[in-house]
């Protein structure tokens, strides 16, 4: 709530959950197990095997007993087993915002009743709203399928065991540009094969075409797939598209596309865009901007205006050639 006006929102965590579930359903991702079912451990923290651990990150705090070469525990001064910290953490290469209504909105109370049983019917109510919402995400292409097995600013992605496994299964070593080992040589990151990395990135993006979840689907059939999308590869960790939608009106209730803002971003960051910027829009959604968007796409050689799914597909084709 801001200035006495309400903005509805879906938490970033929920969006990630929808995303994961969609990847499982439509892209055959085997998700890293999280809860115990007889003999499975919670999230494996194994990004080599599980694409979702790679893309969505994890943290697994643990201590392990230090053993000598014969596998016997090494004792400390007090005669207890010496322990070392074997925590592994991975920051998610996929960052997503919350999904929040562009304009202010009001929820209404919808009365329903449950009356299929014998006896009195049971009334209940739920809050509902209808609005245009915005979300943004970024995926760090350099981090996907690329792991540090050493401590990098307090984070370590992989255990030694997984590193060995990965390297014997086609992963390669890659120089870390920033971290040097004791002898002054570049530390070695472990990187999965390009085909695996590309597949994971493309699956993640394509899942947006069919993403579903939340929104009390049973009664509302809320379609949460994007109706307007901008996809671009950038040589930067900035998120410049955050202001391309805005609100107006007496209560800031109108959602507007900020065409001028979009033009400004395309202009200002010209050097940082790699390849084509794809804009996808669903026909019937904000059609009043069709002409403005067509004009905009005409002004820039590197902008293509398509339907949402076309934009996602063509962007995926482009990205397949951009991954090193």
């Amino acid at each position, binding site marked *: 709530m801001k200035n006495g006006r309400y903005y509805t929102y879906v938490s970033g965590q929920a969006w990630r959950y929808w995303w994961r579930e969609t990847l499982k359903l439509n892209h055959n991702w085997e998700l890293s197990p999280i809860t*115990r079912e007889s003999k499975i451990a919670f999230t494996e923290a194994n990004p080599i095997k599980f694409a979702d651990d790679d893309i969505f990150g994890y943290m697994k705090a643990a201590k392990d007993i230090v053993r000598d070469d014969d596998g016997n525990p090494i004792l400390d001064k007090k005669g207890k087993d010496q322990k070392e910290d074997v925590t592994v953490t991975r920051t998610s290469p996929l*960052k997503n915002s919350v999904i929040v209504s562009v304009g202010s909105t009001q929820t209404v109370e919808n009365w329903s009743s449950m009356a299929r049983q014998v006896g009195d019917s049971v009334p209940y109510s739920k809050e509902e709203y209808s609005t245009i919402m915005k979300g943004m995400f970024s995926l760090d292409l350099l981090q996907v399928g690329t792991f540090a097995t050493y401590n990098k600013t307090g984070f370590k992605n992989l255990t030694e065991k997984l590193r060995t496994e990965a390297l014997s299964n086609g992963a390669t070593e890659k120089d870390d540009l*920033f971290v040097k080992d004791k002898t002054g040589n570049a530390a070695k990151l472990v990187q999965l094969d390009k085909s695996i990395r590309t597949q994971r990135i493309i699956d993640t993006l394509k899942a947006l075409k069919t993403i579903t979840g939340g929104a009390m689907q049973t009664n509302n059939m809320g379609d949460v797939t994007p109706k307007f999308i901008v996809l671009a590869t950038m040589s930067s*960790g900035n998120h410049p598209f955050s202001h391309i939608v805005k609100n107006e009106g007496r209560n800031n209730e109108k959602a507007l596309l900020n065409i001028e803002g979009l033009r400004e971003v395309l202009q200002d960051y010209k050097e940082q865009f790699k390849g084509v910027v794809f804009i996808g829009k669903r026909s019937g959604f904000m059609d009043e901007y069709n002409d403005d968007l067509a004009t905009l796409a005409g002004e820039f050689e590197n902008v293509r205006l398509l339907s949402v799914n076309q934009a996602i597909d063509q962007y995926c084709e482009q990205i397949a050639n951009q991954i090193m």
Partner: protein
Amino acid sequence: MEVYKIDLTSWTASFRYPNLISGFQPTLEVPPLSTVLGLINAAAGSYQNYQTLKIGYYFEYEAKAVDLETIYQISSKDGKPTNQAKSNILNREFLFNAFLRLYLTDNIIADYFRQPYYPLLLGRMNDLATVTNIEKGELAAVVNADKVRGQIIPFAKNRLAGQIQALPKYFTNSFPRNNIGTEPYSIINFKSNALATGIQAFRDELAPNKPIDIYFHEIDFSVYA
């Protein structure tokens, strides 16, 4: 004084209290220095080893709300996680439509924000941030600043009214990471009224007729080496 101003915005932001591990997670109303220096590291692409650093910053937001999060509580045995996970709900406070302005004296650091290496965040994974403006400016010194808002000020010597919190200045890049230079700060919300202080600061204008006095933190990292 000649400074580089860097403006960042985000739809959401949250800065956890360093001393609260479980239960309700409120957000600080101004980020600690360690968060800001972490942001600089993200922009730079690597851990910065400073000798000394001079930095000021101002933070504001439009609203505060509470989010519900699912957490998985994993029980441990002998310091090792077991396979038992129990899901629970956590209330986390967050800030809506946040604005952070950094004041730097070093052109090199300012340049990192022209093309940040890692994705920038104001808080946690979901708090994507955008650099909206970078400019050079001249700030006039103010003695006995009375417009100190939206900032954190060391409590020792200054003793300003505000929320008192022990906050770190930075983190080491060792494993595990240790906090550096933790000391009490007064956290002064951007909405605070003018308060008379004995602080030497520098005056900036956030907007016409919206003056703000910026306190510059001068950190000597050799003390903590």
